[in-house]
């Protein structure tokens, strides 16, 4: 599409909005309105919002496309808009100071965007924008030209596996459910992204909701479902809003509802809001939650494909899985299978966070090395610190250490070293992170989120947490590490659902790779990373303190005293070990050990 059009795209995902995206957008709008350019030209001018393009850390990101030449600005604030309009749009001279730097482009270069290909390029609130990138072509093709079995075959051939964590082959799931004889079936999109550290599902729905809907239509057709649900967290208000708008628009275009596109196929989608329970990401819990009950999982078998929502055959797919479907249908299963490894086909979206320079959402082919992700895409360690580990798969996952950085990121390889792909959370940790504390953090999360139905998870995770609590408090006992291991293994073996079966993973994996750190806590009562409050002391180094008073103002406990411009003193009795002084001191005069 060759055009003289001027396009301004403002990143307005949750991150973009938080950084002031709404204000930036309206600043551009009003600036353009004020421009003295011919009305005809103005018409061709469009200012619009786009979804997340991954690197939220640089928000607000703005793309300006003039005559197909794209320039990207980073860290844009409303007061910067006028200058961009004046110099770049009117004067055709980009504001070089504010353009995205090289590493922004590096960040994107190694990525392969399938699911995210249109996120950040199209207006997620416009169905026409989706049409413009061949949206709903796949659904049309499926409904008009393909049989149910054809669709299932294509998906099977693509090798697509569930992106929610377990990695079950999607085509096989559809085939089983499709084979169950029942007049009423359901397809559910699991958008209950609960892993604290993963946000790709939110970004996909915020950035390209129609791709998920299209995936659901295709899935519903393949298994013979008449009704679909999107179970989405209430914590994602923007995603909910955009999804609802998209459903409404799709309904108006007869892409949903009765006799879709004048074929014999009818299908509709309802949105169900979660009410705050991580366990509802587990499929049987999700089902009862949609039915309006306490989200407590039940034993499988029977599996949902046989007896799911209201006892009917039900397929549950995660957001990313479904968003892959239209691409597979449009470009063919072989194209999709060309990415990734033998057993893990396609791409996977990860949420790269923690102590790397470029934090954000990335999409990479399966099998890429962890090193490439962290150093090439992530730009290396933040603040020049030392890499310690990367935690993948969130509360169900484990950690991977420096000597394993060459590992390929795919389902099998990660499992082999005791971690998982899981939902795609990837938290990079440096030498200031305490591994015991990280394990404790995840365990605290799973313990609070345990539904309480089965004993090992309800009481077991509580006991694990108690042991970790005492270790991080310097009250650990000889034998605690072995007890953690033993209990952890038993919980994994005997819990009812995936939550309990994986909850001990962060503990077991950190013990496996960082046992000496645990031992230091127990035997030496020291936290090597100086994180565990009870095991550290703050002191002010007289020789470095300039007496600026910043720490005095920051201290919530009035523990620091001293005259201006003279070295201060810190009372260890009053100190609550909040670390505020450490954070504010510009001279490195606060010592933590």
């Amino acid at each position, binding site marked *: 599409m060759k055009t003289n059009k001027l396009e301004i795209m403002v990143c307005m995902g949750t991150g973009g909005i*938080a950084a002031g995206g709404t204000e930036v957008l309206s600043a551009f709008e009003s600036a353009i309105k004020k421009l003295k350019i011919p009305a005809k030209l103005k018409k061709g001018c469009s200012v619009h919002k786009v979804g997340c393009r991954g690197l939220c850390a640089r928000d607000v990101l703005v793309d300006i496309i003039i005559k197909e030449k794209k320039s990207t600005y980073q860290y844009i604030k409303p007061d910067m808009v006028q200058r961009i309009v004046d110099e770049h749009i009117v004067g055709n001279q980009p504001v070089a100071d504010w353009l995205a730097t090289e590493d922004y482009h590096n960040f994107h270069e190694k990525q392969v965007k399938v699911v995210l290909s249109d996120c950040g390029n199209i207006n997620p609130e416009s169905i026409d924008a989706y049409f413009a990138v061949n949206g709903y072509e796949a659904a049309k093709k499926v409904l008009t030209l393909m049989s149910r079995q054809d669709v299932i075959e294509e998906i099977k051939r693509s090798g697509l596996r569930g992106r929610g964590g377990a990695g079950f082959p999607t085509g096989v799931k559809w085939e089983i459910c499709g084979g169950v004889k029942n007049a009423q079936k359901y397809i559910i999109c699991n958008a209950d*992204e609960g892993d604290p*550290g993963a946000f790709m599902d939110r970004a996909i729905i915020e950035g390209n909701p129609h791709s998920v809907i299209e995936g659901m239509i295709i899935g519903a057709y393949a298994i013979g479902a008449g009704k679909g649900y999107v179970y989405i967290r209430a914590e994602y208000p923007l995603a909910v809003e955009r999804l609802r708008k998209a459903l409404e628009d799709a309904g108006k275009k007869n892409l949903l509802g009765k006799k879709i596109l004048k074929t014999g196929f009818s299908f509709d989608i309802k949105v169900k809001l979660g009410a705050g329970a991580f366990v509802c990401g587990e499929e049987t819990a999700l089902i009862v939650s949609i039915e*309006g*009950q*306490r989200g407590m999982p039940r034993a499988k078998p029977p599996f949902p494909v046989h007896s799911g929502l209201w006892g009917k055959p039900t397929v549950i797919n995660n957001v990313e899985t479904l968003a892959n479907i239209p691409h597979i249908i449009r470009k063919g299963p072989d194209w999709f299978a060309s990415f990734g490894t033998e057993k893990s086909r396609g791409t996977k979206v990860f*949420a790269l966070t923690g102590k790397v320079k470029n*934090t954000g959402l990335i999409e990479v082919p399966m099998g890429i090395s962890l090193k490439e992700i962290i150093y090439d895409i992530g730009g290396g360690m933040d603040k020049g610190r030392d890499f310690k580990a990367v935690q993948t798969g969130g509360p169900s996952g484990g950690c991977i250490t420096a000597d394993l950085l060459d590992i390929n990121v795919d389902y099998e390889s990660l499992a082999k070293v005791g971690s998982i792909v899981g939902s795609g959370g990837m938290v990079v940790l440096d030498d200031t992170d305490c591994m015991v504390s990280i394990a404790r953090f995840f365990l605290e999360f799973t313990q609070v989120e345990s539904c309480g139905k089965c004993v090992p998870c309800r009481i077991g995770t509580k006991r694990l947490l108690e042991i970790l609590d005492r270790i991080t408090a310097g009250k650990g006992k000889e034998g605690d590490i072995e007890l953690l291991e033993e209990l952890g293994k038993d919980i994994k073996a005997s819990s009812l659902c995936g939550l309990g079966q994986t909850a001990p993973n962060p503990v077991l994996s950190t013990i496996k790779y960082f046992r000496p750190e645990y031992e230091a806590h127990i035997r030496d009562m020291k936290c090597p990373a100086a994180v565990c409050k009870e095991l550290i002391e703050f002191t002010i180094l007289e020789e470095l303190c300039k007496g600026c008073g910043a720490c005095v103002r920051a201290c*919530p406990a009035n523990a620091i005293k001293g005259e201006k411009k003279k070295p201060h003193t810190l009372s260890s009795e009053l100190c609550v070990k909040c670390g505020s002084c450490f*954070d504010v001191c510009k001279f490195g005069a606060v010592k933590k050990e």
Partner: protein
Amino acid sequence: MEITSNVEKTLNRILKDFSAEEGNIISLLQLIQDEFGYIPESTVGWFSGRLDIPESRFYGIATFYARFYQKERGKNIITACCGTACHVKGADRVINAARIELGLAEGENTTDDMDFTLEQVACVGACSIAPVVIINKKVYGRQTSGRLTREIKALKK
């Protein structure tokens, strides 16, 4: 909360909306909470009687899900994210500062004057701008103790 005739009007409207929701108690509780900001015990009794759904079931569900509130909440809602990214980027410190600024004791979430409620959530999915705090539905990225304290002070006025 007393069920006055005005409240009853509202409840009847919710009842009507609810019939479109496949008898889903979670949806009903969400409708109630949207209306009142929390789930008043008296409304549960009211619906239980009309729908022949035992109150115990309402209570079981309302206490299971973290996003249902049994008590009235403050005028300003501060939601601090405690996801992994926020955690490693120091969410604890930010939350601590807010607690001190609001004068909240251990286990308390709402100020005595009902002006503020501070809550922690697992993850709001904005990890790349961690630590994240949401104040009255507006998302603030890269929070620090100082910035949050200033925001709270501004709201106090």
